[in-house]
């Protein structure tokens, strides 16, 4: 049985690896989008203007309340009717990025909230501008709190990138599905897929806990 599995692995891996490439691409792009948007929502949430805070809260509640798969369908199938046409990869990465930005916003918000306001006063009394305070005091302290949940979010995003298969992106899960449908080697193929996802998520886990340890020392 093991021999059979190894033989299948040799046969199917090249196809699966090309899917894996797309999975990595979608995950990294979506992660980037989610960080930029998440940071935007979190900063807007701290604004002194009630309207800005309201917009941030509304976006977060709306996006969080709609299933990711529906958001992807919306971007891929509905937007073209409005004249906005994105290819499947871009639609998937953008959709996942938007969907995940609200979780990132929560991670960042918790980080910002953890910064002792008395440190902001110390920074102000030194004459620091708001921008310098963000860069020198708030970000470096907030990241210590935001990083562990950020790691979890990144791993969840990696796994949820498989949802992009529903809008025809031939990423790892989709590539495997197609193979399985034509060869009926379900056990070998889905085992390989599971192993490949693990292979990607475990290093991510180790990286995050390594960074955490580095920050904690200080």
């Amino acid at each position: 049985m093991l021999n059979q599995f190894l033989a299948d692995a040799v046969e199917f891996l090249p196809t699966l690896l090309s899917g894996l490439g797309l999975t990595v691409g979608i995950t990294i792009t979506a992660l980037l989008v989610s960080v930029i948007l998440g940071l935007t929502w979190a900063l807007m949430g701290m604004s002194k203007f009630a309207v800005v805070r309201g917009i941030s809260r509304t976006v977060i509640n709306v996006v969080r309340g709609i299933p990711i798969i529906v958001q992807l369908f919306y971007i891929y199938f509905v937007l073209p009717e409005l004249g906005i046409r994105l290819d499947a990869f871009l639609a998937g990465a953008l959709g996942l990025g938007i969907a995940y930005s609200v979780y990132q916003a929560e991670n960042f918000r918790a980080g910002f909230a953890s910064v002792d306001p008395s440190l902001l006063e110390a920074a102000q009394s030194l004459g620091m501008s708001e921008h310098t305070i963000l860069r020198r005091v708030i970000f470096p302290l907030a990241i210590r709190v935001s990083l562990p949940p950020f790691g979890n979010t990144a791993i969840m995003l990696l796994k949820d990138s498989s949802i992009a298969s529903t809008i025809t992106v031939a990423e790892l899960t989709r590539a495997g599905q197609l193979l399985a449908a034509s060869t009926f080697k379900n056990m070998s193929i889905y085992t390989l897929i599971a192993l490949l996802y693990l292979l990607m998520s475990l290093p991510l886990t180790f990286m995050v806990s390594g960074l955490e340890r580095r920050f904690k020392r200080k």
Partner: protein
Amino acid sequence: MITLKNVSKIFGDRTVLRDITFEIAKGEVICLIGSSGSGKSTLLRCINGLERHDGGDITVEGIPVSPQTLKGVRSKIAMVFQRFNLFPHRTALQNVIEGPVHVLGRAPRDAEKAGRSLLERVGLGDRCDAYPSELSGGEQQRVGIARALAMNPTAILFDEPTSALDPERVGEVLKVMRGVAADGITMIVVTHEMSFARQVADRVLFMDDGYIVENGSAEEVLTRPRVARTREFLDRVLNPV
């Protein structure tokens, strides 16, 4: 160098500063005393704009304190906090050079050299690379004073600098503060340390319910107070049991 004229401050429906008027000359050491809630800290925080005063005028070297002038005002006036407020992610030396490098734009190497000699001066020459969490309260407060001095201020505001310290750590901080006073830096000190006020202050102000009710030499205010409330306060502070 600092003048306050009819300054008032209101929090919600509570008036914490009423009609505060006084002047501080360059190099003067002023101790601000009074029970908690009398408005001492708020007064201090209005001078460098951490709180915005609601009425009257505050000027620092002729510049009126307002949101537009804060940067300039804060570059002249440093502050030392009750709970130190050191940046926990930076070493003692990094805390000290943070302002010079990132506000005044000094070259890091020069700032470091100056920072080391400041830490030397407050008796922490060997703790430059320690993080705040590795320092005692007294040591942290001395770093706080070095951080204030690093900005080369004309005045330093001290907000109860020894109130959060273990009693045996108070002396080391007061000693450093005496040194600062001897260097001719203008100081406004909110404090409960009456012996420090008596020995170092050029003038003592007693605050009660948002008013300045005494304003005179340490000798006058502490031994011959004009009003009953000051006598009661001093009696409570000097003879707690």
